[in-house]
């Protein structure tokens, strides 16, 4: 073979080999976490590992639509994960354990399935002794029907209830342990059975219930609860809790279509007085922590801490009570 021909073949072979090897090498040198809509695979990888006290550098990119990244139960702002761009974040963990990272953007009806875990190891104890959630302690069946048999003619007013707050009979109802373990309807029933309140009308007693609920929260807690609700819950339940969020129709039609991967149903209407006045804070805590199995309602236990859950719960009652967050 003539020398120029040999040289030409070598150069061509080298160029093609480089063109194949270079991107493969680039890819192998780049550790990226890819975000895809849950139907297309969710996070990849979805299990990460870290050491206590060691910074964990993450580079995130989206392969389809805009996603967001946050780690549950950590005080951190959400990071936007844009299609075709790379977002960097550094995490640090003080305690070992399994943390959940999740998508914070409403990317699709299976958005809530976009979750992964970070396994954090270290010498420190895994966690403090954690008490069982209240709904477990109470042995509540959170899937059982809990509708209020009686509902008020108009939305109860916490302000109106405050004007009746001087009744001595009310003091026992204002305790946090009572508030958390009773539904508004149960509370109304007990108020109704109080001889000292026998002269009060039904609506006045409902106003007193609203006052009791208001007394067990703060405007700041309600505001924070509202933020968390709007970020995480309103996509399905709707901003006003009416079960008419942007995904509601899709969830309903997916449910109608059936299929193993679409075990969903139309989101609960949190503005429905029968549903919400019959639900105690403890029951709502259970719903939020565990999720509604088979309904599409995700488990928020790994995402929200206990204080956040109680704030969300206090906000949920604003759909029933007037002048509640003042």
């Amino acid at each position, binding site marked *: 073979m*003539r020398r*120029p*021909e040999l040289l*030409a*073949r070598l*150069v*061509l072979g080298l*160029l*093609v080999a*480089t*063109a*194949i090897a*270079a*991107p*493969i090498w*680039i*890819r192998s040198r*780049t550790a*990226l976490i890819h975000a895809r809509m849950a139907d297309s695979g969710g996070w990849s990888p979805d299990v990460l590992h870290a050491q206590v006290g060691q910074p964990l550098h993450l*580079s995130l*990119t*989206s*392969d*389809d639509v805009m996603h967001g990244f946050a780690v549950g139960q950590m005080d951190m702002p959400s990071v936007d994960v844009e*299609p*075709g*761009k*790379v977002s*960097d974040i550094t995490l640090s963990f003080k305690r070992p354990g399994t943390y959940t990272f999740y998508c914070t953007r409403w990317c699709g009806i299976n958005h809530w399935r976009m979750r992964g875990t970070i396994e954090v190891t270290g010498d420190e104890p895994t966690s403090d002794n954690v008490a069982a959630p209240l709904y477990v302690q109470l042995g509540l069946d959170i899937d059982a029907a809990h509708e209020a048999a009686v509902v008020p003619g108009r939305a109860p007013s916490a302000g109106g209830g405050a004007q009746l707050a001087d009744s001595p009979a009310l003091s026992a109802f204002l305790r946090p342990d009572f508030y958390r373990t009773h539904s508004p309807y149960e509370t109304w029933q007990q108020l109704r059975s109080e001889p000292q309140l026998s002269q009060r009308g039904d609506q006045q007693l409902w106003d007193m219930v609203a006052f009791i609920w208001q007394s067990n929260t703060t405007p700041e807690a309600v505001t924070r609860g509202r933020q968390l609700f709007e970020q995480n819950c309103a996509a399905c339940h709707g901003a006003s809790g009416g079960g008419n969020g942007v995904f509601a129709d899709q969830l309903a039609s997916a449910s109608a279509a059936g299929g193993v991967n679409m075990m969903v149903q139309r989101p609960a209407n949190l503005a429905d007085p029968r549903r919400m006045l019959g639900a105690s804070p403890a029951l709502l805590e259970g719903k939020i922590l565990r999720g509604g199995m088979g309904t599409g309602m995700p488990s928020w236990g790994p995402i929200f801490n206990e204080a956040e859950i109680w704030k969300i719960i206090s906000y949920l009652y604003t759909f029933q009570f007037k002048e509640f967050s003042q």
Partner: protein
Amino acid sequence: MSRTEITANPLAKAALKSRAPQLIVAALLLAGYVFAIVAGWIGTPVGSSNFSIVFVWIAWWALLILVAVPLVGRGWCAVCPIPLPGEWLQRRALLAPPAEKPRSQAFRRLRWPNALRNIWLQSACFLLLALFSSVLLTTPLVTAMVLAGMLLAAMALGIAFERRAFCRYVCPVGGFIGLYAQAAPVELRIKDKRVCAACSDKPCYRGSQAGYGCPWDVFPGGLSRNTYCGLCMECIRTCPRDNIALNARPCGADLVQPSKRLDEAFKAFIMLGSAMIYAAVLLGPWGVLKNAAYRVGTAAWFIYAGAFLALTLLLLPGIFALCTLPARRGRSLRRSFAAFSSAIIPLGLAFWMAFSLSFVLTNATYIAASLSDPLGLGWNLFGTARLAWQPLLTSLVAPAQTVALVGGLLWAVSVARGIGARLSGSSLPVSAFCLAATLAMLWLLL
């Protein structure tokens, strides 16, 4: 018409006779082509951040339709990397022919079937890709598969058939480049017919120790149009009598000859209609249309595909055929239709340039970003990866498009008039057709 022989310049001639410059460019392009395939396969699936989409459908397309085709015709085909591996396998050499034919060369390659010696197959391949273009232009993996498929097809056909069967009869890009190359200000032609007539060996077609027989299966002595000349320059290398020249010439010199071929006539309408549909789908405000084009396999897509084929193969050619009726004067409709279709060539080229101006300038900033981060993995090789998307020269787009479209219309009318004069028939209905199509395109783009 006046012509200037480029090959009269000794430097230019030496550069064209040598295989090295052409091979170096083609080899670099092949590396880029293979890189685009791999990037499409393993890079980000986000099209605007992947080299395969950005460099193939924005950078290459801009160079091809706005620069290479209008100025050099089939200049791209001269350095196209797709046939390179297949041709290497076929010739068993990258440079000059081997001194002795290897024994295995005894295997005689097939001749391309007579029934397929036209550009219908190229048009079918183009339409096939065009129907899926919304997915093809945005999905790196699909682009990678198409690029790889074309490379493998060219290799397979290079092994099985003689010459460049893929380029001449299959390549979906080569079909329209050949059509529009007729408008280019460059041509490869013989200098003296008598020299060719006296040449008994015909090494330009059959090959010799100096070079290969025309890879495009064209006898250079009979060349009168650019359509099927790939500007590979092999005939310049093989002609023992220095009778082949590369000329600079007036634009559209080939268009004065009325076309006689129906496949070429339909190709002109396929390209014209495709430009209009692309303008509507990719640049228009109609979400329903975009969704239909993108959701391949759905009922909406089948309707879109049906409408695409109906417009390009029935409606436009049908209306045009009616416009050629007054000029028939005893000729067959087929002949007058084919003859006047030459007027559609400058019009179609102008449509594609106008469409591409908007498409390319809107997306050009992706090129710089993709250069620094070709796989969309967060790299920043040249510091341009974070360049924000921004349309370029927005104030110039509409005027430039208008100039291109009006210029194309005037050119088309001029060609139609010339053909009308040759056929002794009126070109007015054909000119009216060109005007209506231009107004429609102006409406779609502006």
